[in-house]
């Protein structure tokens, strides 16, 4: 179902094409597919519907805008609810399980953007009060965040991260695992973007292809442990994620935390940023305050701290930085910009508070 089309057929003004070539070099081929997987129906986990989400609605705002006539992107597929399998994200070359099939689903060839929106979990928030990392011990940290009088921070432990699906076609108990935990090597289940343009440096074959992978889930990333996500990088240009940052004990002594918010306009807002200027750095659309202000919540409404994070890995410092800082949305569709190695790793994150002062 993946379709591609040449730059010429997009009818881009010649000026844009000249700028793009000057900035990003000649292109051998373009990756314009759009893959989207969203889960609103979690009744397999909670039959009463209490865990259902608005993520299909969020996805609709993204899908409909991004696949409208005249955009850079064409529909690959949008899977919803029971059609989102846990095997869609696992790489069979990494897991050794033939039932896994990211190649045909989340990470197909010639895909410009792949996005999954689903539940995650925040079980890495501990009950240990802290004022600094020293209070948390090995394998956990004290998050940076503004506090109200009478509150204290609580430690966050390095833990495996998860994406939850809810499908009758599950092969992994409707869970996609990634990241690491104390003293363990990072899980290597996920590998994005490997194809002929990137080469197979990531040990994931050449059967991937997405250039920008986006994961929206609860507590999907923690700033201190993003290095655990290096195995995801097998040619993908950038991985964008949501990263709640707050963990605290409130005045009543209850442990609480910030979370990724169910925000119906996430998809439409993100798409509008992308489509407003495809010559802007791709990360701008993820990093801006509209996304970070609305993208997080806390149960008390006072600690909705979080960051929109973008990660990249490539063979050089310059290439890694370029993915995060310079590469435009037009540039993300160029296969020639695929990562060619993973010797360098970078993380940029845009907080919805002054994390340069309070920490992350």
């Amino acid at each position, binding site marked *: 179902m993946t379709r591609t089309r040449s730059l010429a057929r997009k009818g881009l003004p010649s*000026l844009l094409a000249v*700028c793009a070539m000057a*900035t990003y070099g000649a292109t051998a081929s373009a990756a314009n597919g759009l893959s989207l997987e969203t889960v609103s129906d979690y009744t397999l986990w909670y039959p009463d519907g209490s*865990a259902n*989400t*608005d993520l*299909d*609605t969020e996805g*609709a*705002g993204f899908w*409909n*805008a991004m696949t*409208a006539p005249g955009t850079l992107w064409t529909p690959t597929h*949008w*899977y919803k609810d029971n*059609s989102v399998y846990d095997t*869609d994200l696992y790489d069979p070359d990494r897991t050794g399980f033939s039932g*896994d099939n990211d190649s045909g689903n989340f990470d197909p060839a010639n895909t410009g953007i792949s996005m999954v929106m689903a539940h995650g979990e925040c079980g890495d928030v501990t009950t240990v009060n802290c004022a600094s990392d020293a209070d948390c011990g090995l394998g956990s940290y004290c998050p940076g965040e503004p506090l109200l009088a009478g509150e204290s921070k609580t430690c966050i432990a390095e833990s495996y991260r998860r994406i939850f699906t809810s499908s009758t*076609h599950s*092969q992994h108990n409707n869970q996609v695992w990634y990241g690491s935990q104390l003293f363990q090597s990072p899980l290597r289940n996920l590998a994005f973007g490997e194809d002929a343009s990137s080469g197979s440096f990531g040990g994931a074959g050449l059967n991937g292809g997405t250039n920008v992978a986006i994961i929206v889930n609860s507590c999907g990333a923690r700033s201190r442990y993003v*290095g655990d996500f290096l195995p995801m990088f097998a040619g993908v240009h950038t991985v964008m994620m949501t990263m709640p940052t707050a963990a605290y004990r409130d005045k009543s002594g209850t442990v609480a935390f910030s979370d990724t*918010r*169910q925000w*119906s*306009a996430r*998809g*439409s*807002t993100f*798409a*509008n*940023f992308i*489509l*407003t*200027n495809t*010559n*802007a*750095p791709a990360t701008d659309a993820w990093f801006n*305050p*509209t996304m970070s202000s609305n993208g997080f*919540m*806390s149960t*008390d*409404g006072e600690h909705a701290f979080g960051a929109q994070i973008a990660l990249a890995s490539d063979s050089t*410092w310059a290439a*890694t930085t370029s993915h995060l800082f310079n590469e*435009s949305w037009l540039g993300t569709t160029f296969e020639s910009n695929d990562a060619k190695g993973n*010797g*360098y*790793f*970078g*993380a*940029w*994150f*845009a*907080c*919805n*508070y*002054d*994390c*340069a002062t309070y920490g992350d």
Partner: protein
Amino acid sequence: MRSSIVLSIACALVATACSSAPQEPSPSGSAGTGPSTSPAAPADVRAGFVHAVERSRFRVGDNPAERLEFGSRKIVGDEGVFATRPTGLVLAISNADAPTRARPPLPGGAEAHDALVRSYFLGAGLPADQMRDVSPYAVVSKVGRSGPDFATLAGSKLEYYFSTVSRQIDGIPVSDSFAWARLDADGNAVLESVYWPEIPAQVVRDALAFEARLEDAPTRAALLARVPREGKLVIHHTPGEWDGAFEATATYDVGEERGKVSHFDVEGRRIELSHERENAWGDLSKGPPRLEATP
């Protein structure tokens, strides 16, 4: 100086875009009964603010041209795009290779950035009495060799700040309105966005009445008995990307489990905002089914 000259030329070349106001919202609503779309009398609104390229510190660059594209009216120049949606949402984004990107951030840290963004938007016409606060949003980075070295990189490096202006009317937060900018060392906008629509005066009156009822102890206790936990009163309105009718209403917002924020009226009844309904952003029943029966 060059920026203002070029901007003036840009405005002259795209006079239509610079002089014609975007479609004005004509909303109304009432607290406690859910959103309403009945038109309000023009004078019976609390002022909004629609940003405009001629008042902007954003530079579109040479060769500006106007385009209607993907729901926005855009002024596209060699250095960036200044886009306005029919709702009045403005989004200005410079190109990856625009000269402003090569300039250092504004010196002076968060405080200086916040102060200049505040004065910038006030000077551009944002109603001073509706400014709630100005907050710094930091963008930080870590880049290094992969593996153990990365994990031991000490802290993060500050790259730049955004400053975000939040809104209130008569003390009630208007949670969906915003104005924000990222300024370079010259005080020019690298990126900026504003959505600050007119709010029907009736919505504000309803919000103040809601607030007064919350100050009544028995009413407040009755509400808290019906909602999951304590929350706060805010005015909501439809997002700037919303193509449907503008709506605004005051609700009591409560954070729930699993990332959900719910809205309630003063009686504790749940309110569903139009843009949060299941098919709000497109019919979810459409689209081809997944073909394979098993993975």
